[in-house]
Each structure stands twice: as structure tokens, then as C-alpha cells.
């Protein structure tokens, strides 16, 4: 099953990037996609069979993306306001907090999300447990410490 799905994804990519629809290029595509599928079939999908969990995770992640895009726009407006403000109201600080997330993929998503949301950048994830975050002012640090985003990420990857 995962062979077929991996092959279809690879071949769609091939078609998009090549843009050639004659028999020669399509045959080349089929051969190389089949070879890559055979060699690296376990990279894209870890498990042999699909479980219901995989699908719910994907749907939840897709729901999370619009919220993240909205946060990114807020983040840029926030930085733009500070950069253009003549008095530059910043109060930078490093904050450390403990996370309840466990899986690698949720740590990664949470880290990237912190970087993209207003006024905070992930500096380090120490031991997969402690986040060290640089915050531009106190207000955004307090927003992060309420844990709203962490709950959203946990909801995607760590709940059944």
C-alpha cells in the first residue's frame, strides 16, 4: 500500500516539475520513480499499513495551517510596528519553559510555530524537554506561556 502511495506522490511531482508529456519523458519518470520508491519506501510512511490516526493527524494539521498563517501576518505587523516606532518599545529577554510535548514531529512543529508567531524565536530545545525562547517584549512572552499554541500542537499529534 505505501509503495503505491509513495509512487503516486513521486510521479505527480515528476509531472509537475518536468512539464513534458511525451512518451520518452513519462517512461523515464516511471522508471526513476519506481527505483526511488523501491529504495526509500520507508522514509515517507513509517508504518506498513495506514491507521486511522494518520488520517486524523493530517486533517488536524491542515486545519492548523490557516491559524498559523494568520499568526504569521500578526507577527509581521507586530515587528513592523516596533521597527517603525521611533521610541522602539522593546524589552528582550530569554525565557525557559518546560514542554509537555513528547514526539519529535510535535516538538519540531511547535518550535517552528514559536519562531513564526509574534515576537518570539525558538533558540534551543534542550534535551527534547526545555524550550529556550527569545522574546522581544514581556507581553508576547506571557502570551506564549499561557500555552495556547502548545495545546493546539498537542491536539494535532498527541491526542487520539
Amino acid at each position: 500500500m505505501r509503495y503505491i502511495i509513495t509512487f503516486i506522490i513521486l510521479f505527480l511531482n515528476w509531472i509537475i516539475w518536468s512539464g513534458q508529456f511525451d512518451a520518452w519523458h513519462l517512461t523515464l519518470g516511471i522508471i526513476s520513480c519506481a527505483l526511488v520508491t523501491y529504495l526509500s519506501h520507508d522514509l515517507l510512511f513509517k508504518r506498513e499499513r495506514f491507521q486511522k490516526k494518520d488520517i486524523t493527524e493530517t486533517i488536524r494539521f491542515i486545519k492548523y495551517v490557516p491559524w498559523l498563517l494568520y499568526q504569521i501576518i500578526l507577527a509581521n505587523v507586530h515587528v513592523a510596528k516596533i521597527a517603525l516606532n521611533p521610541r522602539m518599545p522593546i524589552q528582550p529577554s530569554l525565557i525557559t519553559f518546560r514542554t509537555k510535548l513528547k514526539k519529535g514531529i510535535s516538538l519540531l512543529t511547535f518550535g517552528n510555530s514559536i519562531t513564526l508567531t509574534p515576537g518570539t524565536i525558538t533558540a534551543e530545545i534542550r534535551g527534547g524537554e526545555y524550550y529556550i525562547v527569545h522574546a522581544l517584549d514581556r507581553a508576547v512572552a506571557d502570551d506564549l506561556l499561557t500555552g495556547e499554541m502548545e495545546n493546539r500542537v498537542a491536539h494535532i499529534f498527541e491526542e487520539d
Partner: protein
Amino acid sequence: MIILTILAIIFILGGVFFFTTATIGLLRFPDFYCRMHATGKGDTLGALLAVTGLAIYNLHHGFSLATILVSIKIIFIAVFIFLANPTATHAIMRAGLDSDVEPWTKKEVPK
């Protein structure tokens, strides 16, 4: 097709605006870490908007398979920027921490 051109202009101008504020922030902020805030965020949205604008502008010749394929490729660039930029920002930030760059803090003003 005039609507597409106008949309593209709006997107590209938005991108230019955020690139500009990112540059101003880069010049004005006091230390390394704060500057990362300006570039790490401003560049992501700026590049996303500018590249999306180009993808839309590319369609103003008319919808055909060729132009749509090119637009999809341009959108792929946006997706890769979206994934790579926060990661790179984080890597540079961490390199700064590892080499003990002192973060700038506001001096507490006695009340």
C-alpha cells in the same frame, strides 16, 4: 485579466513593504537576537507575498497547462521558503547562544 494584475500588484507591494520593515528593523534593533526577529519574520512573509504575487501575475497571459504548471512551481518555492526560513532563523539563533553572544536587555529604570 486586469483583476489578476491588480491582485499581483497588491501582493508584491505587500511583500516589498514587509521586506522594507524587516530591513529597517535589522538596522535599528540593538543586538543580534532582536535583529533575528526582524529578518526571520519579515523575510518569510515578504518572500511569501512577493512569490505568490509572481505566481498570480504569471497567469495573466491566460490559463493554459503551461502557465498553470509554472505557477504551481512558483508556489512550491513559497512552500520551501515557508519551511526553511524558521528553521534557518532558529539555527542562527542557536549558533549565537552557543557562542555566548550576550543578549541585550533594557536597563531597569529605578522608580
